[in-house]
């Protein structure tokens, strides 16, 4: 019945599995948060292209994030995290900071990560002895639908509205969706969402219409610093691995990829990320597993329960005295 033994779990090329013969290479996003400047061009470009409605005029107080989350009305969401760096990370003992003027050109002691906000040197003002602050950094990440290899939203969709495109992406067909809401509970990333005044479920389509015309998705095209990169997933994964290596070489050991691994709980994401902290810091689940991995076992349990139910009924009527 299953087209591929890995149809529910494990590494898989999703487009052929979804019935596309001679599918083009799987396309995806690599979002490199180490170069994200939090400009939100992705959010706006997405809304302009896809005609996504306004998502509310609320000052949320979550740093510069007034979008809040991926929702039916925000298909890209830039997260902003203001945080002290982990204790002991890159900071120099305070007495070094007051070092004499001719301390020489190199700073071997404090040569922490090179590319972040305040890596090597001093926290603002520490040299003046004013504050107790620890070092500080400001993380930004443009979140988006992950276009999972094993997309629970798609698999649980009872209408076939959510479908796998020939590019391996996951798209809601607005002419089909009847707003049953199942996909929303199924998504391990909290991405897909119901639009209240519309009833249907909406999320990033990876600009399916643009892909068909050979164009780049709106967000990736707009992104000023190439934080959002679009391309064949295989290429992106190679590029991402190289980028992590570069960052590690440059003294950014906390750089890590998220969603790149075809062996992870969702078979790898079509949209994966380079992060500078744990996933949950950005609001991402640390180790998502597609719920349908366990579906065969669930059906088995349901079958057993059904049998038990039937058996109990038979017993109730056959056995007993009254």
């Amino acid at each position, binding site marked *: 019945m299953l087209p591929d033994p890995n149809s529910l779990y494990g590494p898989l090329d999703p487009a052929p599995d979804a019935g596309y013969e001679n599918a083009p290479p799987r396309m995806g996003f690599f979002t490199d948060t*180490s*170069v*994200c*400047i*939090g*400009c*939100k*061009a992705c*959010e*706006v470009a997405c*809304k*302009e292209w896809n005609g996504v409605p*306004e*998502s*509310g*005029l*609320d*000052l949320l*107080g979550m*740093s*510069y994030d*007034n*979008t809040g989350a991926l929702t039916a009305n925000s298909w890209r969401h830039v997260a902003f995290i*203001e945080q*002290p760096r982990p204790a002991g990370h890159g900071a120099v003992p305070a007495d*070094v*900071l*007051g*070092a004499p*003027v001719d*301390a020489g*050109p190199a*700073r071997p002691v404090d040569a922490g990560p*090179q*590319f*972040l*906000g*305040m*890596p*090597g*040197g*001093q*926290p*603002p*003002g*520490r*040299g*003046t*002895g*004013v*504050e107790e*602050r620890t070092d*500080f*950094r*400001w*993380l*930004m990440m443009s979140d988006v639908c992950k276009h999972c290899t094993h997309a629970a939203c798609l698999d649980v969709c009872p209408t076939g509205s959510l479908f796998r495109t020939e590019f391996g992406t996951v798209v809601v067909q607005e002419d089909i969706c009847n707003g049953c809401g199942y996909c929303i509970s199924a998504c391990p990333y909290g991405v897909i969402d119901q639009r209240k005044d519309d009833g249907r479920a909406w999320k990033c389509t990876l600009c399916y219409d643009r892909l068909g015309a050979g164009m780049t998705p709106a967000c990736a095209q707009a992104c*000023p*610093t*190439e934080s959002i990169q679009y391309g064949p997933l295989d290429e992106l994964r190679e590029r991402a691995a190289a980028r992590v290596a570069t960052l590690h070489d440059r003294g950014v050991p906390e750089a890590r990829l998220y969603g790149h691994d075809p062996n992870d709980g969702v078979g790898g994401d079509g949209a994966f990320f380079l992060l500078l902290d744990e996933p949950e810091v950005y609001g991402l689940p640390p180790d998502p597993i597609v719920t349908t991995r366990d579906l065969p076992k669930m059906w088995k349990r349901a079958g057993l329960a059904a049998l038990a139910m039937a058996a109990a009924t038979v017993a109730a009527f056959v056995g007993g005295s009254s």
Partner: protein
Amino acid sequence: MAEAHPVGFQWVMEAKRRGAKVFHVDPRFTRTSAVADEYLPIRAGTDIALLGGVVRYILDNELDFREYVLSYTNAATIVSEEFSDTEDGDGFFSGFDPETGTYVQDSWQYEGHEDSSGSGHTAQERDSAAGLTHESHGAPVGGQTRRDETLQHPRCVYQILKRHFARYTPEMVERVCGISQAQFLELARAWTANSGRDRTGMLIYSVGWTQHSVGVQYIRTGAIIQLLLGNMGRPGGGVMALRGHASIQGSTDIPTLFNLLPGYLPMPHHAEHPSFDEWVDSIRHPGQKGFWGNARSFAASLLKAYWGDAATPENDFCYGYLPRLTGDHGTYQQVLNMIDGKIKGYFLLGQNPAVGSAHGRAQRLGMANLDWLVVRDLFMIESATFWQNGPEVATGEIVPEECRTEVFFLPAASHVEKEGTFTQTQRLLQWREKAVEPPGDARSELWFFYHLGRKLREKLADSTLPRDRALLDLTWDYPTHGPHAEPSAEAVLREINGYDVATGRPLSGFAEARADGSTAIGCWIYSGVYADGVNQAARRKSRHEQDWVAAEWGWAWPANRRILYNRASADPDGNPWSERKRYVWWDAEKAEWTGYDVPDFEKTKPPSYRPPVGASGPEGIAGDDPFVMQGDGKGWLYAPSGVLDGPLPTHYEPVESPVRNPLYGQQANPTRKMYAHPVNSVNPSPPQEHAQVFPYVFTVSRLTEHHTAGAMSRTVSPLAELQPEMFVEVSPALAGEVGLTHLGWAHLVSGRAVIEAKVLVTDRLTPLRVDGRIIHQVWLPYHFGFEGLVTGDSANDLFGISLDPNVLIQESKVGTCDVRPGRRPTGPALLDLVADYQRRAGIVPGQHAPAVTTDNEGKEHGAS
């Protein structure tokens, strides 16, 4: 830069990828800081102290690019022995006139040119914002100078520089700016390490730098560093001004500024320029080197473009038609005049001073006291509805039924509904094609002014008054097309480019300009944009089909040069400084300059050329004088004239500062433009009393998500929702001190206004230790006003009016205020609160504090 120019910032990220180190200096940690290698929090308004520290570091350690400095700058030039420095004057240079608050610059001149410089008392130059004039053509200076190539002469510029910046030590930088010595040294080391034949460093500023009472000197300090390190005129070098509006560069090139005519020709002054010859000579400075020697051709061609057949050599090309300056006619003087009832009518053309200009209340009160106001905009902006919805209506200061201003709101065409050129921040003109017709009554400015002019001329057709001749003789015959009779923008661009009067042939460049009336040029620096009858600004050869200079994309003035003064990218002998930094060089075989860019030099003048004695104009420029617009062909470390507040940058405190100037007895720029008007006031700063009434420093700037006064972003839903409310950023320490809570309300009080904002408590703001005290700074976006999808109080309301003396731009990046928890009062109680603060601070509206704060009041350094 990431915050306000994200797409430009891609090139910084590109450089970073290739190993560049990025330092970011800002009062608050921004999106730029987040990806910079180093972030240096700075006390707002102290950039000269920081940069001066770098200058000292360079000179003390002799880290300058000596070959470049010797050949291409005025480091070796000897300065008059009458000159005395701020070192000796407690913050004053020689020549200060306390009566007018300006300098007599004779003593600043190069030796031997004390009297012949043409530069004297600068009070009038200040009023005419002469600094802007000097933006392109430099200031007058004698062409032949005495030099000491060993740089040892005590009065050579190099030594003067060294003495002047001697006190800008790392300790002083820390004391003034709040930047630790270690961080400062990190910056200084990295900057100086990227200097020399193989390496360059780039200085990027956003034009908030100009919005200081010493704004021009900020940029001067940056230029000094870049000259010392050999970073000017070379790829990967330079001082990059990130201007904030699509064609703000164009708005100065073809100015709608009171003191300028197109191409930085000065608007004539009634006393200085009574005749055409005097006017022209004041531009070209006879005897001076450089290309301004051709000023007569440019001036005559402009007048010819304006008045066509009526302009003849015999009548000085209708020079008499030009209106004359008598003093300061800048926008802030105008606003005060409006309040005083002196101005009848006001045009606002895509501008929203009710939100975007300093002292919003003064702006609105001024507009409420006009006969008529014409607002042309895409949206119903605050400057059109002040009489209805402005904060002064709430306080009772403007009563609609008593406000006489007649308001015309005319909808404008958007950028896709008209064609024309924008000049972006690197002087590049790009033509926009028209996509659609404007909706309804919306029209372009081109349409409005063309037809307004047509109507005026019709109404005056029978006039015999002399004053109407200028209108009636005007060339005003642009072809029109389309359903609305839209004038042809290409025809206007053609006139800007210039043409041969006899044949109508478009000129190929300003070298073809003639002073005999045979050429007409609307803006000489733009000449060539329509060369060969082709709209060069409309060129859009894909970047994939040309080299990285991309010379065939748009058109850059002058003459499509992408890097100015690029002769400096070659060494004195004309060879590239290094293979890595090859850009423009002398091709000895072909005996001409060549390279990736259009050489900014006479094409066939060899590096070995030395001018004959007494040569002037272009002929006077030697083969190794790259700065061809300067009067001596050199990059100016020291500016003997042209900069009104000193030949060298000096740290002065902002006009409003909680700190006594640690460097000099003189507190703030003594030459700043001040207005003693009842509506205007300045919060007290040391050594005045009551400075503690406004204990906090506030600074304002842009958010990525909004644009300037908000008319183009608060009205646009996908932008409005991204930053939906006015807020103030405060440090946790200040929040604790004042009692502010995250997402709660605060109100800020200055001597002019009270505004309220939601509070964002963030570690991105940090208290600084300055001169032994802790200084708290708060930050505000200035985008909010009372119209649009999202609204809020305007940060610019907090500012008073104090201007840079060179360009008359207001200090609106730093001020002092008090911060209080909770919402502000409303109605008349608001005025009471301000009045209470004014009383406590000893502010008497209409009076300003003395400009001079030294004991000797600068007298002993007075005019000599």
